[in-house]
């Protein structure tokens, strides 16, 4: 994926760089851009949690009980809450990016609407998911 063998030509001519975080005025679209990256980075490590879940299930009842104990603890539940919100927020942010890729939603009002929909939608959907989750926990086995 990455080739570190930068040629002599690249060494002579500095590569073009884009302005960094501090030059932009703070606004909602800026926050959503940052959150998309931060949630993505968080989900990268959350992926290990999904793998742990599957490996524990494949290993046996004791390993699975250990996973269930961790995910049922306060810290585990907080991580799961953060993971589920990050997952939903990153999905909605991804949809926003796909809309932009199709060259829609670039007007100021559209951008604001998409940014608001991402943050409000992610919070609402996370709450709904946890309500469904709690109902599933209490439901018949």
């Amino acid at each position, binding site marked *: 994926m990455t080739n570190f063998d930068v040629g002599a*030509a690249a060494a002579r001519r500095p590569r073009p760089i884009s302005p960094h975080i501090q030059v932009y005025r703070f606004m909602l679209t800026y926050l959503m851009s940052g959150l998309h990256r931060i949630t993505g980075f968080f989900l990268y490590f959350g992926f290990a949690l999904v793998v742990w879940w*599957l490996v524990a*299930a494949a290993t046996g*009842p004791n390993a699975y009980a250990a996973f269930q104990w961790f995910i049922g603890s306060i810290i585990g539940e907080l991580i799961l809450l953060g993971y589920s919100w990050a*997952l939903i927020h990153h*999905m909605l942010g991804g949809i926003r990016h796909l809309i932009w890729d199709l060259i829609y939603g670039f007007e100021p009002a559209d951008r604001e609407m998409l940014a608001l929909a991402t943050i409000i939608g992610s919070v609402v959907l996370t709450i709904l*998911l946890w309500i469904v989750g709690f109902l*599933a*926990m209490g439901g018949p086995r």
Partner: protein
Amino acid sequence: MSSAKMRTPLGRVRGRGAAHSGTSTFWHQRLTSVAGLPLTIAVIVIAVALLGRSHAATVQILGSPLVAIILLLFILNTAYHGWIGVQEIIIDYVHEEKLKLLATIGNVFFIFLAAFAGAFAVLKLSFGV
């Protein structure tokens, strides 16, 4: 790409960005994000359906063909998506070449470890050996 043969070596490498790999990662990131939408929703449904179930019931459901296929696709797709995403973060924030090399290696190792472990677990659950 037959046109590649007509280009000079400098012309071929110029403008390929910090990853030195052109726009293919951009396209793959979009591809895996589109695939990730239905796959992730399906995995959320599976996870919620398994909440509070016993180990025996969980193993049976996770190993059933449709669930296992969805999980395998989710693991491979997510691993590749995360690989590209974190590589992009490394390119943006890690400027020291040796540290960048180290982070890149770490990214590849983590992704392969997670993807292989997850895929192996699903296959074991499926075939029950």
